[in-house]
């Protein structure tokens, strides 16, 4: 019950305190463990987050739970891929539950829902299936180029 109380206390706090204030949920919730993975991520729970995976895909949804390895559970998540060169992006249509293995996580951040909609102005949304295939092809091409380059660089001198 004490845990429940501290969560309630926090929920009151977020409405009272501006986000620029240096008070975070972890300060109240995990005061005795200020430097753990759990303390760092707990502030994102029940918020809309963007989890960027290794490879560059983004999962956008509500973070429900996590553990010390950075494994995440995201509810109502959609997958998004960006093509900065052409200012296009693709987004999956059906929101799903995502369980993400921490190993594959590059970064997670909480979205400012006030700016979020405006942030994609100027970006063209394209069909997700096409976008996804193009994204995978880009990754494959880049990998192949890297392999070829590695051989060439090795020919220039002893570089691992």
């Amino acid at each position, binding site marked *: 019950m004490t845990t429940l109380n501290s969560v309630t206390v926090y929920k009151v706090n977020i409405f009272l305190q501006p986000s620029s204030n240096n008070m975070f949920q972890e300060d109240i919730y995990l005061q005795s463990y200020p430097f753990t993975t759990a303390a*760092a991520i707990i502030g994102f729970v029940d918020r809309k987050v963007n989890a960027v995976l290794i490879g560059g895909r983004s999962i956008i949804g509500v973070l429900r739970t996590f553990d010390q390895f950075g494994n995440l559970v995201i509810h109502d998540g959609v997958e998004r891929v960006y093509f900065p060169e052409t200012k296009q992006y693709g987004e999956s249509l059906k929101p799903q539950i995502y369980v993400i293995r921490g190993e594959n996580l590059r970064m*997670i*951040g909480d*979205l400012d829902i006030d700016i979020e909609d405006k*942030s994609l102005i100027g970006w063209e949304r394209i069909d997700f299936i096409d976008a996804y295939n193009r994204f995978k092809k880009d990754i494959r091409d880049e990998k192949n180029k890297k392999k070829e380059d590695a051989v060439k660089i090795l020919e220039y001198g002893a570089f691992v």
Partner: protein
Amino acid sequence: MLFFSFFKTLVDQEITVELKNDIQIVGTLLSVDQYLNLKLDNIQVDTEKYPQFLALKSIFLRGTNIRYIHLNPSTVDTNLLQDASRREAMASAGEKIAGR
């Protein structure tokens, strides 16, 4: 544990993190954990190139993706860091002998 403690002293300072995929992130260090995962606030990234960062406020970065962390020399006592490195090396050597 040396660099864990080291980064703890840099909390609230502005740092620049360069990731293994060449993204450069400038931000205020909020917290660090034993794996050197970082939490950054007020981040600045070239969002033209990396739109994933659009509308993000604070981020949790997994330590394994980090290549470099650029630090402000005025926030670091390099002599202290050198001494700490020596002491840590001695401590770990001691452990090995004790463990034999």
